[in-house]
């Protein structure tokens, strides 16, 4: 399986990925039209900064999937076809149980529809993540997991959770 690898040392904090993500999840899929859509498109990647470190955060597809265990509607589930954790927006009731347990804080609330959204690896774009394509410095790369395991950094949260 491929993973989105983050090399935070290359991240400039320019938020190109955030913009590309919102556009990729708009109805029109173009920036100019997306701005005027009645439901403003929601980004599912969050560039966060802390003391000189920039980090584009999105769903890490946790092996222990706390969000799937917390979801009380069955909306957050492993998609059988791809093996990815996805939210079924028709089933989601917006209870925020998943938000309560996601250790990376990457599940976005959609106040207009009272549902949640998270990185879906750009399902609509044939799983070709828009954030990766948009990143000017290649801080984001979409690579096979084995490669990821070697080059991925061991983060504090990853360590304590045994993620990936």
């Amino acid at each position, binding site marked *: 399986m491929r993973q989105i690898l983050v090399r*935070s040392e290359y991240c400039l904090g320019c938020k190109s990925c955030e913009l590309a993500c919102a556009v990729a999840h708009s109805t029109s899929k173009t920036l100019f039209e997306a701005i005027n859509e009645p439901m403003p498109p929601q980004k599912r990647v*969050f560039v*966060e*900064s*802390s*003391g000189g*470190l*920039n*980090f584009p*955060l999105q769903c890490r597809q946790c092996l222990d999937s*706390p969000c*799937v*265990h*917390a979801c*009380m*509607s*069955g909306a957050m589930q492993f998609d059988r076809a791809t093996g990815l954790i996805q939210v079924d927006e028709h*089933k989601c*009731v*917006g*209870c*925020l*149980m998943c*938000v*309560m*347990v*996601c*250790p*990376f*804080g*990457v*599940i976005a*609330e959609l106040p207009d529809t009272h549902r949640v959204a998270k990185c879906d690896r750009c399902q609509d774009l044939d799983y070709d993540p828009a954030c990766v394509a948009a990143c000017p410095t290649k801080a984001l790369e979409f690579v096979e997991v084995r490669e990821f395991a070697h080059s991925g*950094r061991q*983060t*504090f*949260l990853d360590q*304590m*959770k045994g993620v990936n």
Partner: protein
Amino acid sequence: MSYIIVGNSAAGLFAIEEIRRHDTKSEIIVLTAEQEPSYSRCLITYFLAGEIPASQLYLRDVDFAARLNLTVVYGAEVTEIDSAHQIVRSADGREWHYSKLLLAMGALANKLSILGDDLPEVFTLRTMRDALAINNILEQGARKAIVIGGGLVSLKSAYALRKRGLEVTVLVSSGQILSQMLDAKAADIIQEHLRANGLRFLLETEAQAITGQNHVQGVLIAPETELDADLVIVGKGVRPNSEKLRGFGFNIGLGLQVDSYLETNISNIYAAGDITETWDFVRQKFTVNATWPNATTQGRIAGANMYGRQEVYLGSLGLNSVDFFGLSAMSAGITKLLKKEAHEDWSQTENLKMLGGLPIYRNLIWQGDVLKGFVLVGDTSQCGVLTALVKAGQPLTQTQKNLTKGKRGTLAVGMMK
């Protein structure tokens, strides 16, 4: 190999899916006292509120049992376990042989024992059947409801009835709503928000009797004071179904006792979910943490171990989330400082502000530099990271502690350094 799973709710369902991930061949028999495929108990108030149709209560697709090759027996109430012969029996005399057995029979709503509690419009709310019956009463035009109890299920019910246009009064015997989940300040904020949205609260008030001949007429709260009602919902907590298993040799405390593999004292019999007493790793004591995420996690791990893996269950955590009329609250771990702890190395960092007319409250509870729990109201976006910190139980540096005041991801990123 023959697996028997008793109960097809949160714990049972996740156990079944885990077993099938490893073992696609062996027989899996699912016994459930109810008549429904796996559905979400937590969503029945959403159905009552009219927010989702009954069909959306089901957790999996219609082809689930066929796809996973399960034999599901509905209406099978297990009343006897013969561990010497590895047999379970149901109330109607049927029996099944198991190699591995999971008891995921959950909990039962406590009833009131006061005069009039057997009238037809008095309900507890635990099952889809309860919800459908209450819905019938609503469709017949009920106008005034009294909810007895101030816990999560009571308030979710009161919210639903209010959404359906009823006049709703909530009777709380203690001085605070949601006392298990929230501290006093957070509870006040939620109560005020609910009041502003039309719910009425009477604190420190006990229901003495339910009045009416053949139908509910009202609730007596003092010898001379009666409140009108045509529907009463009793939310006085739940009781693990383990009581029914006394006499079959199980170790039973607050619930069925298990080891760290979630196996009971009888070999080949496991327990998971609301029926189980587990180690609360934050509060450091054995208890029943009867919430959905605990039940699914226990179910999954019990399933893995029934298959033959050796996964250790590290323990449960009290955590919950509510969202009423656009205001959400979440809490995890220890939510209140006890008096006796105040002078030791425990402390709390409390913060309240208003944003766009809505209150934002947070209270973090620390033991030394370890986050032991929190309560959040209003802005809950950072909750997941805080939950992870409570689970990790590791001391934080001062810089990291400062980050807990920031917005969502800053905290996660700050932890990575």
